[in-house]
């Protein structure tokens, strides 16, 4: 297991560095890193510190967050098809962002769009708590999440439907496809605190998720409180996917595919899958975000589109493998 973590850390670090040196400005590796670390005169430090660094950091935390929450949701629901979007918070965050674009609020201030998305995420989490109730089980929670997602999607469709002109609709559709381009360090500071808090909350559930391997009753008899586990998990996931969606848009398949791929490598233990999946998610999103800059640099290929294009066939491959004998 140790070699796996060493490899994941190495790959993620290399991709982070690669993300810093990828871009249209055509800086050499040495010049770029020198400008990043030492500053200096001219546009180079600005390019590195204001454009590329936030993009790389967001790739790291958004990908890591999606991988972590995917592993946590799958462990909690004991279902390899679970993913972080299931609780409806990311859908509500997207609706918040879409409304900010539609109303023109997003043009009034740099942070208006992510703040509006965070507000949507918060409302989604509140709605989830109200719907699922304090004692409802995991099924109630998921049904509530699906209902909230449906509501958020309906709201987004309505906004698109009523958009005043094709440009507004265009902008909304592009935002929904997910991207980390042109984000600032302000975005990073906005989402980092809740995401770190969410990750810490999820980390506290690691042993409980292991216990759930034996079913809810056996876990409860081993000292796991189902109620506190559920709320720690839901709060942790909401604190991560809300901000992740607010700055990155909708980036699909990462939270579903990454835990799935890494599960056999950690001996299927839900607690070990949490850090592995966080690293794997970060690596995948960093790689995809580098790829969108290299494949079609002039066409602005969207990150969410690429993760879906890569993720869906991977998922098909896993289904194929499961069908032909192996278990998930």
């Amino acid at each position, binding site marked *: 297991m140790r070699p796996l973590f060493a490899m994941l850390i190495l790959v993620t670090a290399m991709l982070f560095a690669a993300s810093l040196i990828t871009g249209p400005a055509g800086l050499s590796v040495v010049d770029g890193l020198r400008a990043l670390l030492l500053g200096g005169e001219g546009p180079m430090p600005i390019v590195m510190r204001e454009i590329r660094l936030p993009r790389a950091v967001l790739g790291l935390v958004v990908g890591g967050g999606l991988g972590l929450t995917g592993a946590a949701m799958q462990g909690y629901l004991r279902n390899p098809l679970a993913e972080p979007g299931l609780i409806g918070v990311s859908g509500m965050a997207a609706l918040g962002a879409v409304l900010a674009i539609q109303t023109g609020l997003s043009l009034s201030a740099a942070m208006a769009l992510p703040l509006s998305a965070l507000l949507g995420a918060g409302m989604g989490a509140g709605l989830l708590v109200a719907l699922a109730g304090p004692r409802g089980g995991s099924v109630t929670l998921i049904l509530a999440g699906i209902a909230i997602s449906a509501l958020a999607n309906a709201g987004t469709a309505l906004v698109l439907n009523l958009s005043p002109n094709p440009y507004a609709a265009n902008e909304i559709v592009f935002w929904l496809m997910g991207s980390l381009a042109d984000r600032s360090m302000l975005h990073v500071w906005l989402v980092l605190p809740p995401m770190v808090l969410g990750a810490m909350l999820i980390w506290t559930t690691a042993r409980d998720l292991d216990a759930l391997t*034996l*079913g809810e009753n056996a876990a409860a008899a081993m000292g796991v409180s189902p109620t506190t586990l559920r709320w720690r998990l839901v709060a942790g996931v909401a604190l991560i996917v809300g901000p992740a969606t607010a700055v990155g848009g909708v980036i699909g398949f990462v939270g579903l595919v990454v835990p799935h791929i890494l599960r056999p490598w950690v001996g299927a233990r839900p607690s070990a899958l949490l850090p592995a999946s966080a690293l794997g998610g970060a690596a995948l999103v960093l790689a995809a975000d580098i790829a969108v800059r290299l494949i079609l640099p002039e066409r602005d290929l969207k990150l969410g589109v690429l993760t879906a294009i890569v993720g869906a066939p991977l998922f098909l491959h896993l289904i194929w493998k499961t069908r032909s004998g192996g278990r998930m």
Partner: protein
Amino acid sequence: MLLELRELSVIRRNREVLRDVGLSIAAGELVGLIGPNGAGKSTLMEAAIGLIPFSGVSNLAAMDATARARAAAYLPQSREIAWPVSVEDLVALGRIPWPGSGRSSEDRKAIEAAMTRMGLEPFRHRTALRLSGGEQARALIARALAQEAPLLIADEPVAGLDPAQQLACLRLFQGLAGEGRGLLVSIHDLGLAARFCSRLVLLAKGRILADGSPDHVLRDEVIREAFGITTRRIDTPDGPAILPI
């Protein structure tokens, strides 16, 4: 007493599933919980360990969750294993209530002892989900043993096992009782219950109908009242065989 229940009642969906149950188990006792389907055996175990709401007193449910998990290990009827973990990792889950994250020397000792006891060393690195039903049941019992609780509550641990595995499992339970642990085991086979348990508790329609030695509990009139059948008892040198007719 390892387990002490007084006036325990459970109401589920406006139906009284258990009524005024009193039961205590001392160290060294292997208590068989028998009774027809729907009598409330699983409910009794779940309430005793505090998994469902009830009225009355249970010494276990009164403890905080960690203390309770160290006082009693529980084997549910459903042999659920959600992920393809190795047998060793599965057994290690029994150490969750203890400090040490499964890696301290006490943890290692408990895990190894439980695996040796259940004959699981050859399967150590095998995926638990790929084992046969009997082997899985053994791995899950080993998990409960690794918990090192003085009381073991097992819901139909021998259901679905072949005769050899059933005997091996009940002999193991007898051995555990001999070492001073207390066990509450629900079981459908009256013959096996009579042979292996030191005491039987017969539950019918949510109430305790009889509690005592196997000979005392398995009387014709008691069995007729609880199960609505008659039985034929054949005494053999290895214990009684009880034949439902």
